[in-house]
Every structure is written in structure tokens, then in C-alpha cells.
């Protein structure tokens, strides 16, 4: 009997010991505040991370040339104390602070940015955000031209040779579908060879064998040119071109073309510096950012990183602006379960729930609270059509479906948080940009007429449509409402079905769906971040949509110079060429400032023309609504700007829901 008792007591003692042991690892003094970040960061490497939860922590640990001013989100001095822009708007000169340093005391110099930007652009690293630096001279050549050349020399060339062997001549439709299947547009998007450009946009008639052979020779030349450009970029980038460090505290960036949003890029986390002296130590390449190894330069230090438990950030005493950082310690919680998040907030275990981290069913109860803040977001919720599959390869069908959806009903009844119905793809709120007039607002008569013209009067003969969404309650509700509207308004039978995330991604990427739900978050506040994804075979296009004019518009908006040299070729395809002609005139005559303003307007107009192809002509997608951000924030947290406040007294919504941790603090007092 006693033996049993003793063994039971012993087991209990072991349990207690173990419990004590697991807790001892996680004892820190209470922080100033805690916030729920929604998930565990996948990485804290600025050049490899994607996603908002990572963004929040990385932006607290590192600092780029510029940073977001918390009140206006405009670029404020970061590592760069000040900067100048050349008259042609293409060269930025950043003057770095002399007191900027790494957390181990080592001074931070322009060489750190050279290393970091080259690291971001290194194709071997595989950073998804490498393209963010493509406005910089030689950046794309450095990052991608080698793989373009390999794609041309390898699969594309082989497929073309097979095509030429089998056919004497080939008609335009076959040719275009060949180009799409062979993924020709991506690697050839920057070509300057006339023979390639002409044949890529070849839409009528048929091609002879000679023309095909000329194209094939053009490919050889293109691959060679790309490799030369890549070699040149490897030689020059970071030394004599693209970005350079004339001395330790000067960093010069040369852009391909004026890029009005460039300083927003230098505030964005992928362009932040990473410590070469840590990363290149043996054994550090894939875990240099973990708590024992990391050296960083931002306002906070990584004190503790207990996976799935919390991240403790402590104020960084070596940060140049440490006087401006008023919080001394904060905890980042990775809680994912939405009910748990809300409970933690309600009991004071967490002071801030970042965007939409509460059960959406409770919106109606929460929206009247004083600490519940909502605002429009730079995010669009939309459906992709499979543009290659019958019947969605018929533009009239895509248009009809777009016309038959009652978006207002969805935002009001299903969502109910002030979301805006989307009649364009670019959300409102982009400075200097208004979306084109829409042709997709609710119009049932027109929708039925179009459907009848396409051969499905009253929905007769229309195959059953599958609406794919990634498993989520709200997506499910919306898909069901839309399926119901299609049935009722057009007589089309639709079935909503779901897949969990990884399966959903592979289905959408393989374009194996009829209609698929998607959302896109703007990376920076310029319409380009929403529009350049729809270029032919763009990695995020995933609909099969392809329009040469669209591709041309996006390419020209990215780099105006070829367009300015010869505008007429493109202008004849546009809907509103008059406006651009006028700006061209004033750019020709005016001063440098007037010229840059006119160029900016032309660029926006080109993007507007591009968007008009999406919502007036081709309808490859069905925009549904624009998101809102909603945060629950304890009023004791200060430095929060739900509405941006500009020095001239103007106010604007905080579209990107950015709240730099650097500038958030807690008013001390009785708890």
C-alpha cells in the first residue's frame, strides 16, 4: 500500500518539476502592452518574408532608408537622414545618419544596403518580393534575365522547333494559343526586337514558315541579349549602376523611370538592411534571425521568441531614435483562434487585435464599441473566371455574370461592416488615380440579353458551374449567395465547393476551376500593384487572360520612355487618347517640374486604360467588394492613427492599416 502511495507521490513530483521547468523558460517581466498578431511569423528574414504578421515584427526590428510617419504614412527619415531627387526624377541620393548602428554597436553604412539589396535580388535566395526593386536600373536584369534566357533557350525553343517541323503555316489563333501554352510572354516581356514584338501580338491572318524561322532566330538573339544584360548587371549593380555607395554615408539609387511611389518602397520591409556579418558566418544562412543570433538595426530587439507562445520585443538602446521610442517592452502573441483572440482582448490579456481577429459573426455586437475601429483597406475580393474553358472563354458570358451579381446585397447583408461593393479592380484611395467608368454594375436585362447572344437563352444549355473557395465561413456564405443569384437571375446552376489552402492554391494555379474566389492586397499605394498582375502569364494572373494591348500598357506605364519616343502605335488602341495627347504637348513644352507632372498623369492614364480593359472589355474577373480593416484597440495605447492626419489639417483613411510599433506607447498610470 505504502509503495503505491510513494510511487504516486513520486509521479506527481516529477509532473510538478516538469511544469516548473517549462515555465521557467518563459518568465519575463510584464510588458508595456501585448498585441495579437494572428499567426506565428514564418520567418523574420526581411528579404524572404511575406505577409502582414511578419511585416509588423520585421518593421519593429529593422529600419530601411525611410520609414512610415505614423500620422501620415508618408516617408519619414529612417537610416537616411535626408535625401535629394535629381531633376529628371530618376536618381535618389540618400544621406545616411552617422549615428545609425547595428544592435551590436557596429556602424551601419551604405555598404550594408548594397549587400542587402543585392541579397534581395539574388535569384538564388528566392525572395518573393525581389520584384519590388524592379524600378531600379539593372535590378530585373540581375534577378530574372538569366532564368528568362534559360526558358527561351530550353523549353520555348524546343516547342517552337517542333511546331515549325510539323506545320507549313499557322493561323493566328493557333499561334496565340501556342504562345500561351509555351509560356512565351513572360521571358519575352522586355524584348526590344521588332520581329518578336510583332509576332507576339500577331492576331490576324496566318504565319509562314519563314516568319516562324525569323521568330526562332529572334529567340536565339534574345536569349543572348538577356544573358549579356544579366552579365552586365552582375558586373555593374551595386558598383557603378543601379545603386552605389560613393562613401560610407551616401547611397545613390538610379531608377529606370520616374517612380512616384519609390520612397514607399524604401519604407517597405523587403528593402531593409540585413547584417552580412551574421548571415555569412558558417551555419547561419537559414536561421540568422533567430533569437540567439540576430543582429538588427531597428527600434526593438528580439528578446524572446517562443514559437506558438509569444515574441518579446525590448527597446533597442543602440537605435539612433531611441529617445522617440516610448515603449520599453511589448509582447507579440501568435494566437490564431478568433474566439480566443477576442476573449483575450475582452479580459485585458491583449491590448490590440490586429486586423479582423475576432469571430465575424460578432460584428454586429462589436461595431458599436468605442474601441472598435474600421476603415477602408487596399484589398479587393474577387472571383477569377477560367478564361480558357467553355463557356467562360466567351467574353459575353463573363460580362453577363458580372452584370448579374448584386454586390450591394452582399456587402450589406453578408458582411455588414461598411465594405464597399467593387465595380473596379483597383480600390478607391490611390492618390492621383480614379478607376474607369464601370460596365459591371447590376443590370439584369442586359445580362440576360448577353447570355442569350452567347447561346444560352435563360441559362438553357449552360453547364453546371463550380465556384471554388478556400475553406472559410465567410467565403462560403458569399459563394452561396452568388450561386443563388446566378440561378435566380440568369438560370445558371452553380455549386459552391471548398478546398483547404494548399489544395486550393494548386487548383487555382493549374487553372483547374470554373470560377475561383481570390483576394489581392496592395503592396504599395499605387494602382500598378493591382494591375501588373494581369499581364499575360503573369505569375498571379492564373486565369488564362491575355491581352497584348494590356501587356503593352503595363509595360509602358512601368517605363514611359519607349512610349514617349513613339506614342502613336499605342494611342490608336486607346479609348481616350485625347487626354494623353494633351499631356504629351505640355510635357514637350514645359519646364522640368511640369514635365514630370505631365509624365505622372500620362502614366496614371495608361494604367486607367489598362483597368478599363478589365471592367469594360474583357472581364477576366469578377470584382466583388473592397475590404475594410477593423482593429480592436485598448484606448490606453497611444500613437494610433485610425485616420491619417496631415499637417495641412486634411484627413484620410489609414488604407493600409499600418501602425508602426516604433511609435506606439502606453500612458502610464494605474492599470
Amino acid at each position, binding site marked *: *500500500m505504502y509503495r503505491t502511495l510513494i510511487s504516486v507521490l513520486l509521479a*506527481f513530483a516529477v509532473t510538478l518539476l*516538469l511544469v516548473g521547468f517549462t515555465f521557467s523558460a518563459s518568465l519575463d517581466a510584464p510588458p508595456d502592452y501585448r498585441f495579437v498578431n494572428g499567426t506565428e511569423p514564418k520567418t523574420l528574414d526581411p528579404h524572404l518574408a511575406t505577409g502582414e504578421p511578419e511585416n509588423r515584427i520585421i518593421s519593429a526590428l529593422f529600419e530601411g532608408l525611410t520609414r512610415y510617419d505614423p500620422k501620415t504614412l508618408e516617408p519619414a527619415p529612417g537610416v537616411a537622414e535626408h535625401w535629394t531627387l535629381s531633376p529628371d526624377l530618376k536618381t535618389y541620393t540618400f544621406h545616411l545618419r552617422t549615428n545609425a548602428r547595428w544592435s551590436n554597436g557596429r556602424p551601419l553604412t551604405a555598404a550594408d544596403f548594397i549587400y542587402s539589396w543585392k541579397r534581395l535580388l539574388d535569384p538564388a535566395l528566392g525572395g518573393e518580393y525581389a520584384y519590388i526593386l524592379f524600378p531600379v536600373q539593372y535590378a530585373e536584369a540581375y534577378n530574372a534575365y538569366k532564368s528568362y534566357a534559360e526558358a527561351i533557350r530550353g523549353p520555348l525553343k524546343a516547342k517552337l522547333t517542333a511546331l515549325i517541323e510539323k506545320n507549313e503555316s499557322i493561323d493566328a489563333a493557333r499561334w496565340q494559343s501556342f504562345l500561351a501554352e509555351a509560356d512565351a510572354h513572360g521571358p519575352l516581356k522586355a524584348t526590344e526586337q521588332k520581329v518578336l514584338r510583332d509576332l507576339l501580338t500577331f492576331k490576324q491572318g496566318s504565319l509562314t514558315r519563314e516568319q516562324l524561322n525569323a521568330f526562332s532566330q529572334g529567340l536565339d538573339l534574345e536569349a543572348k541579349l538577356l544573358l549579356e544584360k544579366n552579365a552586365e548587371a552582375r558586373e555593374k549593380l551595386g558598383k557603378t549602376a543601379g545603386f552605389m555607395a560613393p562613401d560610407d554615408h551616401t547611397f545613390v539609387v538610379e531608377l529606370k523611370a520616374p517612380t512616384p511611389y519609390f520612397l514607399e518602397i524604401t519604407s517597405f520591409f523587403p528593402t531593409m538592411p540585413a547584417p552580412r556579418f551574421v548571415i555569412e558566418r558558417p551555419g547561419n544562412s537559414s536561421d*540568422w534571425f533567430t533569437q540567439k543570433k540576430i543582429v538588427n538595426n531597428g527600434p526593438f530587439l528580439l528578446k524572446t521568441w517562443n514559437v506558438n507562445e509569444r515574441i518579446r520585443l525590448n527597446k533597442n538602446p543602440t537605435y539612433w531614435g531611441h529617445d522617440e521610442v516610448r515603449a520599453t517592452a511589448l509582447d507579440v502573441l501568435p*494566437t490564431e483562434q478568433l474566439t480566443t483572440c477576442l476573449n483575450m482582448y475582452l479580459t485585458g490579456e491583449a491590448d490590440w487585435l490586429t486586423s479582423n481577429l475576432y469571430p465575424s459573426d460578432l460584428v454586429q455586437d462589436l461595431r458599436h464599441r468605442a474601441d472598435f475601429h474600421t476603415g477602408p483597406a487596399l484589398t479587393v475580393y474577387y472571383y477569377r473566371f477560367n478564361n480558357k474553358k467553355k463557356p467562360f472563354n466567351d467574353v459575353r458570358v463573363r460580362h453577363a455574370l458580372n452584370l448579374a451579381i448584386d454586390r450591394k446585397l452582399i456587402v450589406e447583408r453578408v458582411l455588414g461592416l461598411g465594405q464597399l461593393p467593387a465595380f473596379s479592380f483597383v480600390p478607391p484611395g490611390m492618390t492621383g488615380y480614379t478607376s474607369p467608368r464601370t460596365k459591371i454594375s447590376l443590370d439584369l436585362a442586359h445580362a440576360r440579353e448577353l447570355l442569350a447572344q452567347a447561346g444560352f437563352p435563360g441559362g438553357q444549355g449552360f453547364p453546371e458551374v463550380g465556384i471554388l473557395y478556400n475553406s472559410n465561413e465567410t467565403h462560403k456564405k458569399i459563394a452561396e449567395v452568388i450561386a443563388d443569384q446566378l440561378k435566380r437571375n440568369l438560370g445558371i446552376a452553380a455549386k459552391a465547393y471548398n478546398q483547404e489552402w494548399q489544395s486550393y492554391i494548386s487548383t487555382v494555379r493549374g487553372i483547374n476551376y470554373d470560377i475561383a474566389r481570390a483576394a489581392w492586397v496592395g503592396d504599395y499605394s499605387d494602382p500598378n500593384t493591382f494591375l501588373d498582375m494581369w499581364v499575360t502569364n503573369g505569375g498571379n494572373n492564373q486565369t488564362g487572360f491575355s491581352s497584348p494591348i494590356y501587356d503593352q500598357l503595363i509595360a509602358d506605364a512601368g517605363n514611359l520612355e519607349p512610349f514617349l519616343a513613339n506614342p502613336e502605335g499605342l494611342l490608336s488602341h486607346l479609348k481616350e487618347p485625347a487626354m494623353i495627347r494633351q499631356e504629351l504637348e505640355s510635357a514637350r513644352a514645359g519646364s522640368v517640374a511640369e514635365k514630370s507632372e505631365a509624365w505622372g498623369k500620362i502614366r496614371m492614364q495608361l494604367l486607367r486604360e489598362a483597368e478599363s480593359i478589365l471592367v469594360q472589355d474583357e472581364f477576366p474577373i469578377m470584382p466583388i467588394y473592397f475590404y475594410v480593416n477593423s482593429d480592436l484597440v485598448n484606448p490606453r495605447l497611444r500613437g494610433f492613427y485610425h485616420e491619417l492626419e496631415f499637417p495641412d489639417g486634411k484627413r484620410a483613411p489609414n488604407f493600409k492599416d499600418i501602425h508602426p510599433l516604433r511609435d506606439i506607447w502606453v500612458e502610464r498610470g494605474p492599470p
Partner: protein
Amino acid sequence: MIEAITILVGFGIIASTAWLGPKSAKIVAPLLLALMLYIGGRAGWGQLTGIILAISGAALAYFFAPVRVLRRVAFLVPSLVLLIYTTTLLMYRAPGNPFAGEKVADPQVEMALRAHYGVPKDATQFFFTYMRRLVVEGTLGPSIKVAGRSVEELIGPALPVSISIGLLALALACAIGLTLGVSAGLRPNSLADYGSMTLVLFGISLPNFVIGALFIIVFALKLGWLPVAGWGGYRHLIMPAFTLALPYAAYVARLARSGTLEVMQQDFIRTARAKGLPRNIIVLKHALKASLLPVVSFLGPAAAGIMTGSFVVETLFGVPGIGQWFVKGAINRDYSVVLGTAIIYSGLITSFNLVVDLAYAWLDPRVRGTL
């Protein structure tokens, strides 16, 4: 097809361990045990610990373990290998792969990532890469989705968390379950019986997340005695442990009741009564041990399950345990995490089953002869 044959052959090998002769078992089993202890010890605490564990384990097995136990040990290693192989095949059959992100990556980038993480496109190749890494380098491999962390680094801190909640829950389950079950079994069809069996019914039919939510509403939101969620103090342990314990307590109670009922009608109890032993001695000294048998055989797999955490309880209470990795690994197609958790779970299950068999022998003299 080749895969199916391989799996069948694997089953054959595993089954054949049951017919190992006493001599060969005495050699094969300690060797395999040493190998396992070495790999596990090295992954957890370094080279030296691995060697010490391996030698002492093998010596213990060689000198003290009976043949049947040795056979069970010999059975462990090939079945773990087969488990890894089968899990690999299943993972590769699932749509998607760990490198499919929302934004499309260059095929070359994917190739580079696959090379870096040691994840070839072919399942069998992956199996060999993984086994080589496990045996030669003694690591469970890097997690693919949690950058910069190996699977040991993820599971290492999570396992003690789950084990401490699990042990507490197990103790609670036994305490509650045995009290209810034995007292019900001693007085069948009494008020106490009906009362406790009604409670048990609740414990079995209410799912974890409902019990947990009820606890949160009462003890955290209404009364404010305990924190809603999180980790960092003993107060964070109480609600998860109770939530985890209740369903197990209910099963234990039912098994203990039927066990007690049956035992109390046995001849040896009647004999004990007839010779005038007081009731509490009969129950505690004679009946309890025998009536525990069904409970013990349930506790083996239950202990493995309870100590490897529960996804529901962990997410509900924001506990950084290992249960989440079972689900996240699968959802993210994080192959090395999936395999790591599978190995740990099956390792625990098989060892607890072994412990249960040994405990049987201790509790029931009739079983001893067969061991």
C-alpha cells in the same frame, strides 16, 4: 505498385519479429534498442548522452528483459521505419506541396528550395533522404514552413508543455474517473450509480471545445479567477488540464464501474468476505487491483494521446503545445513536421503499450506466466 509491395514486405518483417527465437531476440533487440536510443538521445541532448543512453539501454535489455519484451522491442524499429515510409507516401499523394505559395515562384527557386530542404519530387527518394538524415546526422530535418527552425527546435519546447498538461490531465482523469467508477460499481443501480453515470454521459458526449468554452465563460469571463488563454504560469495550466481530462475521466469511470461490478461477483471476493475481511480491505486490497485491468489497458494509448496534446484544447487556450504541429504540419504540407510528430506519437504509443503489458503482469498474477 512497387510501393504496395514494399509496404507488404515491411509488414512481413514486422510480423516475423514475433517468431524471433530467444537467442536471436537477445541479440537483435538490444542492438535495435541501442540504435534507437542513440538517435533519439543525440537529437535531444547531444552525442555523449546518445552513446550513454544506448549502451545502458542495451545492457539493461540484454541482462534483465524477458524474451517477450525483447521481441516487442525488436518489433518497434521496423514498424517505425514502415510508418515513416507509409506517411511519406501519403503526404506525397496529398494535393499541393510545401513550396506552393500564394505568389508564384520561379521553377528554379523551387528547385533550389527543394535541394536546400532535402525534399526531392519523388516520395521514395525523399524517404531515403529523410532516413539518411535521421540515422547519419541524427536530426528530424528543418521545418519547411517555419523558417530557420529544425523540427527538434519546434517540438522540443512544445513536448514538455503538452506532457505537463497531459500528466496533470491524466492524474485528474484517474482520480475523478476511478472515484466515480468504483463507487458506482460497488453499489450498482443505486442513486450514486445513476448520478455518477449521468455525469459520465456528459463527459463523453460533450466535445472538448464545448467544455473548454464553458470553463472559459464561467471561470475566466464571469468569475475572473483564471486567465482566458496564454502560457506562463500555473494558472494557465488548470483549465486546459481539466478540459483535456474530463472525457478521459468519463471513459475511466465506465471501465472502472464495469470492472468493479464483475470483480465483486468473483469467487475470490466471496471467499474474502466469507473469512470476514472488512469491506474496505476487500475493496482496496483485493478488488481494486483486479478491477483496474480494463482501465490500465485503456490508459496506455490514452496516455500517448493525452501527452501529445490536443489541437482543439491548445488553440482554444493558446497553449504552445505539440498538438498544433500535428494539424499545422499537415495543413502546411510541412513534410518534416508531419513525420516528426508521427514518429513521436507512434513511439509513445508503442512504448506505453509495452508499459501497459508490464503493468498487467504486476496487477494480474495470471498474466505473469505468459510473459
